[in-house]
């Protein structure tokens, strides 16, 4: 059973603001029956068309999807459109006292419905990833076919929530959670986003002795990195460690794969993140 907070339970059992607003100023709709959750958000503005005076929702989904929608409507009521737009999915989760990580996509769905509603009201491109047949959709290349998610959307969520693993991306967006075919691409997006971040922002591991560092590198390769490669039929072997230089050789599907450079980069970022900032990964013929 999910370890839901009392607040999630309470908002699920007594959701606030269920329903519709017939003369709503803005309506945002995301998700679908096939995806397993969907949210339709109605927003009513004051006469000056500035401030949100009422918000209502309809949600198809699990307990945390319903609770997240309820939280969202409570959060945005009384805010100006710009203030509302600044709402993050983390705020929705925090409002509920937190969500299990596997359920974070429910908070992302709420935030997204809000963006869609406001974008449609303002007449800009609709920043949705869900296939709703909207005319104008924010540019982006579909990365996850199963859930219709674009690179633009995924990168935004990765950056906003500082995600570092494909599994986290699945928990936050669902991408990768069905056929899994998009996982390699998700990993590339993670390295892109991580690579773009200033190093100071990442948590710096404490100073390590050489021996401990070697142990950690081996452990991280075994426990964190190889399982991810196995999922795609690939593998790697640790060839040598000297100081901060880690030599690896790719096996099976990774060997000779055009994107193995990316994979090496991914391994490097992962090791830097989990072991030490100065690690350099070199691919060698093994």
């Amino acid at each position, binding site marked *: 059973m999910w370890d839901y907070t009392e607040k999630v339970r309470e908002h699920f059992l007594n959701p606030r603001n*269920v329903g*519709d607003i017939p003369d709503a100023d803005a309506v945002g709709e995301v998700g679908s029956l096939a995806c397993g959750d969907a949210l339709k958000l109605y927003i009513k503005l004051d006469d000056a068309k500035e401030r949100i005076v009422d918000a209502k929702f309809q949600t198809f989904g699990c307990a945390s999807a319903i609770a997240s929608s309820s939280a969202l409507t409570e959060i945005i009521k009384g805010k100006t459109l710009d203030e509302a737009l600044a709402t993050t999915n983390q705020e929705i989760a925090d409002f509920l006292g937190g969500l299990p990580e596997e359920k974070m996509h429910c908070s992302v769905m709420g935030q997204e419905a809000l963006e869609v509603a406001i974008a449609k009201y303002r007449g800009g491109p609709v920043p949705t990833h869900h296939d709703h047949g909207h005319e104008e959709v924010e540019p982006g290349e579909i990365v996850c076919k199963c859930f219709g998610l674009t690179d633009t959307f995924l990168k935004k969520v990765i950056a906003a929530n500082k995600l570092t693993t494909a599994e986290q991306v699945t928990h936050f967006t669902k991408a990768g959670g069905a056929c899994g075919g998009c996982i390699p691409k998700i990993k590339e997006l993670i390295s892109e986003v991580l690579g773009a971040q200033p190093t100071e922002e990442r948590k710096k591991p404490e100073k390590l002795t050489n021996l401990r560092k070697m142990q950690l590198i081996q452990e991280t390769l075994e426990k964190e990195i190889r399982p991810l490669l196995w999922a795609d039929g690939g593998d790697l072997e640790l060839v040598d460690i000297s100081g901060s230089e880690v030599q690896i050789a790719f096996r099976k599907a990774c060997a000779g794969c055009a994107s193995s450079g990316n994979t090496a980069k991914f391994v490097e970022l992962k090791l830097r993140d989990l072991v030490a900032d100065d690690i350099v990964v070199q691919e060698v013929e093994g």
Partner: protein
Amino acid sequence: MKEIYMDNNATTKVDEAVFEEMRPYFCDLYGNPSSMHFFGGQVQKKVDEARNRVAALLGASPEEIVFTACGTESDNAAIRSAIEVYPERRHIITTRVEHPAVLTLCRNLSKRGYRVTELNVDGEGRLDLNELRAAVDEDTAIVSVMWANNETGVVFPIEEVGKIIKEKGKGAFFHTDAVQAVGKIPIDMAASTVDMLSISGHKLHAPKGIGVLYVRKGVPFRPFMVGGHQEHNRRAGTENTAAIIALGKACELAGQWMEDENTRVKAMRDRLQTTLLELIPRARINGGQAERLPNTLSIAFEFVEGEAILMLLSEKGICASSGSACTSGSLEPSHVLRAMGVPFTCAHGSIRFSLSRFNTDEDIETIIRELPPVVRRLREMSPFGREFLNA
């Protein structure tokens, strides 16, 4: 709050009589059955009795019963044994709707170079025996086909499957995961084509953590748990004596309750099914046209999501389970419902009720009273449900 427990395919209550039977074997009769003294010997006698009782329920002989630690171990042991016995054969056949205890192992083996055929099922969860016939060949080491499905209760025609394997398989082993079938429907290994069969104690009112692998006399077996000589060298490790004795008693009781299961329990299930279909529009039974276990009802409601239903039912003390994505942490509906091609409008809204002899008519009445308003409430909240209700 008194619970109404309708999740017996997940696990069952330990029958009080079963518990009484095992109780002395912790603090008083704790001897090791392998010991040479009287103190271990008396436990050995009870373990033998348990073996006889399990064998009796299956129509097997006692030497064919190997006690294991769970259903999962039995499944793993059977498949691993077959590929050890036939190292040159590289083909395994199973179905898309197996329990992960079988499916995960097979998929792992496929990464290690095995050719794995996963047989499809139709919209009602039934096998296509022609697909099996076409798949079995001399390279096939083992066919593992479950007796009854844990999610839908759909029962496979095991003896027909066995006949095809014996005709076409050139000695391929036939294993069946009968974890959900044993104790619910009659099984007679004396008249069966099955070579190996898995049982799990906690599905038939024995404790968790005890299982059986039936291995037919004459079928070669290579244990994957090695060490001591227990279970005639087929499963090393000191016996879980109390749990074995409990399982023996549970099997004896299952034999006695078999008729009740197939009459009274089945009638309760059928009444629940018929009434829910009457009271709730746009509901469908998963596997409703197929032969099913007497205790299982998998029912799908369009426009709502299963976890939300379960949580609202749980507020009323009703314990059921779902084949929906959200309960498992995965994002897709269960692999069983997907294999059946359950329409996406309701795949996310499937609920499973699984009964046992401990359920009563009152339990059924309570569900019939509580469930329809729950579904209606969630539909009113759901954008798709509202469209439907307004139409």
